[in-house]
């Protein structure tokens, strides 16, 4: 299984371990295996693999995780900067940064 990693030390991911109860939901939903459960507590063990999809934050029943949700798509960022709305690319993606609900 090949795992890709993007730029180092850029993601906005934060885990508040004082709130964590070790339920393991973050390890279940993370598509990049960023977390490991050790001693009944979640640990961020592969931070640079995070793609800020926010699956973990949205599914953490303890609200112990913060991440600014976003789609890592240069085209969407470009269209947003140029203030062109509704145009997009990708696999029938249709993503537009301003459509992403605030977390």
């Amino acid at each position, binding site marked *: 299984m*090949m795992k890709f990693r993007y*730029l180092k030390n850029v993601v906005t991911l934060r885990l508040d371990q004082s709130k964590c109860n070790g339920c393991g939901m973050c390890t*279940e939903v993370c598509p990049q*295996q960023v977390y490991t459960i050790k001693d009944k507590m979640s640990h961020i063990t592969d931070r640079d693999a995070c793609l800020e999809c926010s699956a973990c934050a*949205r599914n953490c029943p303890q609200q112990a995780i913060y991440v600014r949700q976003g*789609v*890592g798509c240069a085209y969407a960022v470009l269209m947003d900067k140029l203030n062109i709305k509704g145009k997009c690319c*990708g696999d*029938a993606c249709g993503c537009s940064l301003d459509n992403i609900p605030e977390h």
Partner: protein
Amino acid sequence: MSAESKKLPMAGDLHETECCTVKEVTAAYADPGDANWVKGEFETAIGPVHRIATTLDRQDLTGSVKARWGVGRMNYSVAPGLYAVGNPNHLSAVLVSANYKLSFDYLRRELDGLDLWILVLDTQGINVWCAAGKGSFGTAELIRMVHQSRLGELISHRTLVLPQLAAPGVSAHQVRKEIGYKVVYGPVRAADIPAFLNTGNKADRTMRHPSFNLFDRLTLTPIELAALFKPVLLLTVFLFLLNLLSQLLSGGNFIPTLLLEQTFSDLAPFIISALIGTILVPALLPYIPGRALAWKGWVLGIAWALIYTTIIAAPAGWLQTTAYFLTLPVIPAFLGMNYTGSTTYTSLSGVVKEMNYALPLIIISASLGLTALIGTYFI
């Protein structure tokens, strides 16, 4: 499909004018019209539910090919609502899906021989991952569709199996709190669903990680190639005019065939550059040094500029060499940067950082390069 069923309201679109008995009976009823993938109806306590085919036919395949090349891609959707696979009962699993036809096809072709329910959400014809990121495959839509489909009257358990990549949009604990349903995240790939269901809804590590192998990386290449058509056409016109002007100014004989020949030979290195950006960058992605995708594209572009100026177009003058070194690499660099949207691992923070560096450099390099290129026609 009979004409009669076409008249029935679509789940999610009940008209006030419709008779209330029709409303009652068809609340769960999705209306796919005479879609080729519907294989009859399945009688349930709350009325008939469409049964779907678990094999893809010719029409599905041509539809996929067209969608992959960008033809009608944004309208490639399935009517939202509840569907049956095989002969499901009150104990059967419920799979939740997006209503992008390609996602739906990937799912149903893996379900041969199984008996289960499929709840198709209205994600506006967008695939699971993007719809989850955008919020249309979200907690609210899931709850709405569970209510509307009257699913609760058909099943005795309260478990919904969602694709794992829906997790950015759906909050499992919130669904449980609001409607008492347990959300279980299934595997990323539909092919793993039978194994997942057989092992009592257990997904191992590989089932939870989207693969991004050579084939996956090139899936979107047709779309990117189709998108190149316009810029290439513009460049062709630009190079044609440069050659024309250059011939006219030099006062030589005007030879149309030579003009066309020259235009296309001038165009060739740029076409190769674009192909490097759309095919070679994704194909060689893990093997090109560096992390930023614009950088990866630029590295291959520099290699191409080197090959072109020292071997293919040799001997190239200093101005021509400069022009090619400034223009050829920025094409795969830009396309590489854009490829971030097609990957499974790039974050928004990373993309913004990469663009802040790459975009100004690309613009400067392209402007200087174009100036030098124009110069080569008149010096």
